[in-house]
């Protein structure tokens, strides 16, 4: 009984921490820069995602959230998979911008092999060309809301 209460409480605490401290890693898999600069803009004074605990990390090992911008090019595909593999569990993926969602305007280009979600599982999609910083923040909040709604036991795995 006591252990169950303890486990439950621990799960809740861990989940709370996870929701409040998503560290992000940015990977450009073949984007035009538009999404990248808007993502960077969310860190700057007007939008400041540090309010939500979001920090841009340099190392995949220390990130919880992988933000992928751009349609995936042939050359970037392996890198994307490798970076995803390097991230410790639990990990989440955000596909940012029309190209990452559906290849966008580059749908018929010969060196573009697909949107992000055919290679790695995507947790949240943010459409736009490019999405406004507000939209990116809304995407992050949606992801965190999803995490919060998940049962505590699941968050622990």
């Amino acid at each position, binding site marked *: 009984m006591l252990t169950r209460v303890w486990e439950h409480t621990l799960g809740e605490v861990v989940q709370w*921490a996870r929701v409040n401290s998503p560290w992000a890693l940015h990977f450009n898999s073949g984007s035009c820069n538009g999404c990248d600069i808007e993502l960077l803009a969310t860190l700057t004074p007007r939008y400041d995602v540090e309010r939500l605990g979001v920090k841009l990390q340099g*190392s995949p090992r220390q990130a919880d959230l992988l933000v992928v911008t751009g349609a995936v090019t042939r050359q970037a595909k392996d890198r994307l998979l490798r970076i995803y593999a390097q991230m410790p569990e639990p990990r989440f993926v955000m596909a940012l911008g029309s190209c990452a969602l559906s290849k966008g305007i580059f749908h018929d280009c010969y060196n573009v092999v697909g949107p992000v979600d055919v290679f790695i599982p995507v947790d949240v999609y943010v459409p736009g060309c490019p999405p406004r910083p507000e939209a990116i923040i809304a995407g992050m909040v949606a992801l965190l809301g999803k995490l919060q709604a998940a049962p505590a036991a699941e968050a622990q795995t």
Partner: protein
Amino acid sequence: MTEVLALLIFPGGIALLLAALLYEWINRKLAARLQNRVGPRWFQPLADLVKLLAKEEIIPQGAQPVLFDLLPIVSLAAVTTAALYTPLFGLAPAGSFPGDLIVAVYLLSVLSLCTSLAGLITDDRYALVGGLRVLTQLFSYEAPFLLALLLPALVAGSWQISVIAAYTSEHTWLLLTQPVGFVVAVIGLMGKLELPPFDAPEAHTEIVAGSLTEYSGRGLALFRLSRNVVLIVGLTLIAALYLGGVANPLLFFAKTLLLLVGVTIAQMLFARLRIDQTVGLWWRFGVLLALGQWLLTLLGKAVA
């Protein structure tokens, strides 16, 4: 019983760790405000810590698994031990013996050594460069930092922190009589904590996360926590030695906060120094300044 409580809960142990998180928050929040941002919420460091503790820990190929796990623990243990000898929150230190100042200062360096080793035992090239940079930096700031902290000992005529603190609270603030020593000590602390402009060992844009590049979960959490403990211990030491002792806990707390504010502002003002510039700065100016202050103090003692 009370001694165990003092070690585990207050003022050591849990209270120390919580205070460490509080100081990190103040540092980050103030930095954000100075950059025109809103900054993190008050519980941010705690959330970061708990999240990291619960995260998967990947031991990379090529790393020494035992050392990889052990280093963060050793560094946290060392710096919390150092905290025992310092008058945390203005209260009497839990342990005290003649010469504890030197022991405390060297225990603080264990963090740098462990961080460096953590980089050197992995195969990661960023971590290797980071580890080397930590060591290089350690050798550059350590001597002047030590000299600056030993100055008050010279003045007070004792190597025991509590004795020096008692001396400084009865005399004029050493900040006024030994300003150079104070400045060197504060800047040395910034070097120890790898705060900008001395953050070359973990420069994101060059070597990702420096020697900690391969650490993901628990190890990273413990290293971050150790660094915060060093911050609090360092501030406490400087406040006790240079800012008029530990007479009143509340006033003392205010003094360390003031120091923290000063450190944060300094860290916002500067661009990162290259590692060779850091070394040059310390050996060309830091050491000379500290030695100069030593000579002056010795002369003053001889005359008086």
